């Protein structure tokens, strides 16, 4: 094998036009939280040419935006499973990474609330399971203690399991940080690039909507479409059944109502409907869990919203009096397997990352390290490794000072004091910075995810046209 050229300077971010004709060392298909983490891990090796290929116009647009934004401890994973190990490792790695990069995390802790005797009994088993997963801080609480911690909880709670290590995190900033760091370290990010064909004859040839991508090694992190790509390469290992999760986001004025992540006692269908604060200062209610045949069914439904409101009314009755600021639905890439399906195919220089459940965000950094290990077994010579240039992400969390709250920043640049989106207090300076960033937004929605502009209670009544003008003037 000829030595690959050393990556010099940042990689390219493209969204249109022909793709570079070069043969990459590794192509990662899918720029969700897992694919972006894998690209970042690979970018630590300066001799590798890495391409991150994404069908949508932005990173984190598939199943990654459907999660409930929780940094899990893994206390309730299946002991001994790959998921249990990667969540446990990833949880610690992501907490450190978030602190270093300015990704908002709040260690609010979780309460699994039991509402009947059966659930109360199940808590004891869950506490034991936590210990088997090497999580020893979980503690059973009586009803009185539960209400002392959560005074607005609805009547009828019998007790709870307190899991202090569960945190809330910004899933969006996490994915963007991985992709940003990967690109700055030399990886190319090709957006709007839908993989339509795949074949391997010593080199992977991916036929995409923007032409051919060639790579010596391939990582399938295609999420909802991972099984389709896997089958194109001759494997029949799992089938994705999209599981829709509808979520209702409540006004920040509801934030005072809840202190912990409030979880139901889990059932076979998943972790059930939770009520949780978000790092943006809102309160989240959801998700539903609906198995669907359609991999694009990201619409909310009247039934889904009614179900959530009914469940939310039991857990936190006062929540229903607060305004709803957003409703959205995402698809989780559920499969017939209970555990992650991360499989190396050394003969094909190919690694499949399938069946990543809602814990994928938490586990992402550990999954990335695991995947690179499997690539090495498939013959990838990673060459030397280096520490990546540290990055600081724009702070969009409420528990940390935002730009308009920092006198030194305001003194240096008045644009941070000119608020455009009033509900979310987004300044013109932050919008300008997002538009000039390494992985800039290509839509108003992309700008919203990066800055929170227009994601507040007015949904654009006040700021919509002003934000749109700034976007249109500064878009890439």
């Amino acid at each position, binding site marked *: 094998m000829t030595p690959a050229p050393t990556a010099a300077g940042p990689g390219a971010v493209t969204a249109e036009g022909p793709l570079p004709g070069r043969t990459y060392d590794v192509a990662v298909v899918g720029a969700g939280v897992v694919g972006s983490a894998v690209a970042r891990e690979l970018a630590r090796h300066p001799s590798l040419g890495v391409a991150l290929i994404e069908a949508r116009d932005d990173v984190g647009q598939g199943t990654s935006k459907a999660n409930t934004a929780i940094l899990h401890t893994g206390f309730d994973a299946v002991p001994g499973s790959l998921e249990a190990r990667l969540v446990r490792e990833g949880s610690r790695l992501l907490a450190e990474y978030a602190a270093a990069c300015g990704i908002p995390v709040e260690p609010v802790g979780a309460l699994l609330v039991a509402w009947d005797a059966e659930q109360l009994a199940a808590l004891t088993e869950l506490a034991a399971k936590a210990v088997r997963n090497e999580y020893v801080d979980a503690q059973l609480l009586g009803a009185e203690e539960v209400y002392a911690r959560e005074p607005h909880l609805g009547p009828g709670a019998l007790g709870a399991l307190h899991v202090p290590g569960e945190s809330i995190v910004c899933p969006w900033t996490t994915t963007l940080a991985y992709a940003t760091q990967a690109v700055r370290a030399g990886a190319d990010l090709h957006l709007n690039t839908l993989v339509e064909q795949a074949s391997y004859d010593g080199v992977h040839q991916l036929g995409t909507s923007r032409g051919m991508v060639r790579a010596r090694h391939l990582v399938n992190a295609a999420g909802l479409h991972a099984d389709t790509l896997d089958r194109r390469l001759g494997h029949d290992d799992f089938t994705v059944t999209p599981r829709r999760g509808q979520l209702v*986001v409540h006004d920040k*004025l509801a934030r005072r109502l809840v202190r912990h992540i409030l979880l139901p006692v889990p059932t076979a269908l998943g972790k059930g409907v939770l009520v949780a604060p978000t790092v943006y200062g809102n309160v989240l209610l959801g998700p539903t869990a609906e198995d669907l045949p359609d991999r*694009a069914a*990201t*619409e*909310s*439904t*009247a039934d*889904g*919203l009614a179900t959530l409101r009914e469940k939310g009314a039991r857990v936190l009755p006062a929540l229903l009096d607060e*305004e*709803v*600021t*957003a*409703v*959205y639905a995402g698809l989780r890439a559920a499969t017939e397997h209970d555990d992650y399906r991360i499989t190396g195919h050394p003969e094909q220089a190919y690694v499949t990352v399938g069946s990543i459940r809602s814990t994928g965000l938490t586990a992402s950094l550990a999954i990335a390290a695991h995947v690179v290990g499997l690539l090495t077994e498939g013959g990838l010579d990673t060459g030397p490794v280096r520490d990546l240039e540290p990055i600081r992400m724009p702070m969009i969390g409420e528990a940390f000072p935002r730009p*308009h*709250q920092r*006198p*030194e920043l*305001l*003194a240096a640049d*008045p*644009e941070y*004091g*000119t*608020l455009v989106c*009033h509900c979310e*207090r987004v300044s013109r300076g932050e919008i300008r910075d997002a538009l000039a960033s390494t992985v800039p937004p290509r839509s*108003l929605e992309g700008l919203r995810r990066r800055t929170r502009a227009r994601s507040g*209670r*007015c*949904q*654009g*009544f*006040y700021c*919509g*046209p*002003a934000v*749109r*003008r700034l976007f249109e003037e500064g878009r890439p």
Partner: protein
Amino acid sequence: MSEEVSGGAGEAAASADGARGGVVGGVGVEGVRERAVDVLVVGAGPAGLAAATRLARAGVGRVEVLERETRAGGVPRHCAHGGFGTWTRPLDGPGYARRLTRGALGAGVRIRTGVTVLDWARATRTEPPALTTVGPGGLETLTARAVVLATGSRERPRSARLVPGTRPAGVYTTGELQQAVHLFGQSIGTRAVVVGAERVSYAAVGALRTVGAEVVALVADRARAPRTTVQWARLGRGTPLLTGASVAELLGRERLSGVRIRHRDGRGAVLPCDTVVFTGDFVADDELARRGAVALGPGPDTSHPAVFAAGALLRPGERAAAAHRAGEAAAGAVLEWLAAEGI
């Protein structure tokens, strides 16, 4: 002296004021300036400007209006239709907004635009209230002998109405639509459905027609069309009005492709359109009041003796003329408080 100033210029004017009036201003330890005025009005819409104007005319010294938008005037700024002003002097919204602004400035009110009130620095019932603000000039804490909240109201957007479906582009409230059309000259779609059949809905129809969009239908969940004035109903001429119906779902991925309508009797239909405007269903913009645990009542008095309220904040969707009267009434309550406080 008075002026309408943007936040940036306002900071320069602030120090000049300080020098003239002998106000003790300074920079706090954390880089937050501090300053005191007599009355702070939050919001430069009809209610806030009316309150400030009356206070200044009554001789209150330093009356300052804080407005987070770049221009004073409130909602009328983007209501490019008639119905404002008086019988003898009819005005459109922008003209009315300009007249109110000029009136306030002429009375000696200081209007600072581009300045956002972030929170209460002090909202205890026993001390003068203080607000933390931010603008291009930085953070500032303003203490006042009285505060008037005139923060207005907004229309409930699609999400708060829990309308299911996809999340495509092309979904508006009247406020956003009017600004896009009249203040920003932005393109809107070509076929629009308007949800609601009240005055504000017809204003949305007017804004859509300005940019040549076809209004497919007005959809109202009431059994019968509500009464509107002749002037407003005329705007809706030629537009189908579907009563007893509601929007059950939004369709389309990137851009809206249609709305699913459900009639009370169970019938349903899809109206193809690329734009939908949710009108009316006004809700108070009461964040600041709630942050300070200031309970609002029907009139200008609140649970805080030195904090008053007026306008659409108390009666969401209130018309400009009524908000203006409420602002003047609030000024009366403020004057009584200042007198009782014993200047």
